[in-house]
């Protein structure tokens, strides 16, 4: 059974389109984690008939994903897909990622915007922010990836049972890659298309991630 986990915060403009795209592609098991949105994200998601879990207050994307992961594991998910709510991912990419996971007997598949030229990234992001972020990610995790901080991931149940996200905000991406390394999971990257409707995370968001990773080091 495949489950799609969609963390959402103030996404009333995109949530319905995102969910309908997933439904049209045959994915029926979808859970949206409404992360304390102040708009009608939860209401619109419920209208589509899928499962919606609501955080009373905003806790961040990492926290939402962990909530979603716990829910789908309890629901008996065998394959779990993390998928952003902002409508920037293409649902058609899910099937090829799952196919790769199964065919190559992998534990995790990560999406990459750099493996084909379908993603039209903003210039500054493509040539400055992401290469620097990639370097930081490699330094922190020891894993060399072609992309960084991409919300598209596919896990097997076995892998997800061992991954715990304690980073509530955006540093969860680095934390997940760290846990892939720590647990010696077999992983691969697949090309994904990201259609930019907004700029997304800016360079100072990266500084926040570095701060969170440093603080995390002292909490353990």
């Amino acid at each position, binding site marked *: 059974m495949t489950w799609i986990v969609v963390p959402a915060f103030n996404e009333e403009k995109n949530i319905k389109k995102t969910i309908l795209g997933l439904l049209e592609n045959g994915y029926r098991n979808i859970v949206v*984690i409404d992360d304390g949105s102040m708009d009608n994200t939860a209401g619109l998601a419920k209208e589509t008939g899928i*499962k919606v*879990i*609501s*955080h*009373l*207050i905003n*806790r*961040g994307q990492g*926290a939402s994903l*962990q*909530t979603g992961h*716990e*829910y789908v594991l309890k629901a008996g998910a065998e394959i779990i897909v993390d998928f952003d709510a902002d409508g920037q991912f293409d649902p058609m990419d899910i099937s090829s990622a799952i196919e790769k996971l199964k065919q190559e007997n992998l534990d995790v598949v990560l999406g990459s915007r750099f493996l084909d030229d379908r993603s039209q990234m903003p210039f500054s992001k493509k040539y400055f922010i992401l290469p620097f972020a990639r370097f930081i990610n490699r330094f922190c995790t020891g894993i060399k990836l072609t992309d960084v901080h991409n919300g598209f991931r596919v896990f097997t149940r076995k892998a997800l049972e061992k991954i715990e996200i*304690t980073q*509530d905000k955006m540093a969860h991406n680095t934390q997940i890659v760290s846990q892939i390394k720590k647990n010696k999971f077999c992983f691969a990257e697949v090309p994904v298309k990201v259609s930019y409707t907004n700029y997304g995370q800016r360079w100072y968001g990266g500084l926040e991630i570095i701060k*969170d990773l440093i*603080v*995390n080091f*002292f*909490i353990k």
Partner: protein
Amino acid sequence: MIFAQIILFLIFIFLFFKTGLKWKKKELSFGETFGWSLIWFFGLVLTIKPDTASYFAKILGIGRGVDLAIYTALIILFYLHFTLIVRLEKTNREITRLTREKALEDKEKKV
């Protein structure tokens, strides 16, 4: 003793007193009480004998006693600030855990 010294002396005595009181009320552990008392003690010594700072500054290769006091204060402030950040993050994680449990519990009730 000049006026500033008298004021500082009284402040440090007050801080000693407050620390002792907090220990008595069990709001501070023995280690914390000892640590804070040590800081107030050095403050008192430096207030009564300001030349002591210059003596230690020379040993450490820092020019003036007042520079040593500023550097020490900066290190202590930085440490305390960092401790606060870590404590805040721990509290945040607790809040997230509670939010998650409530969200999952509510979902289960609805099913």
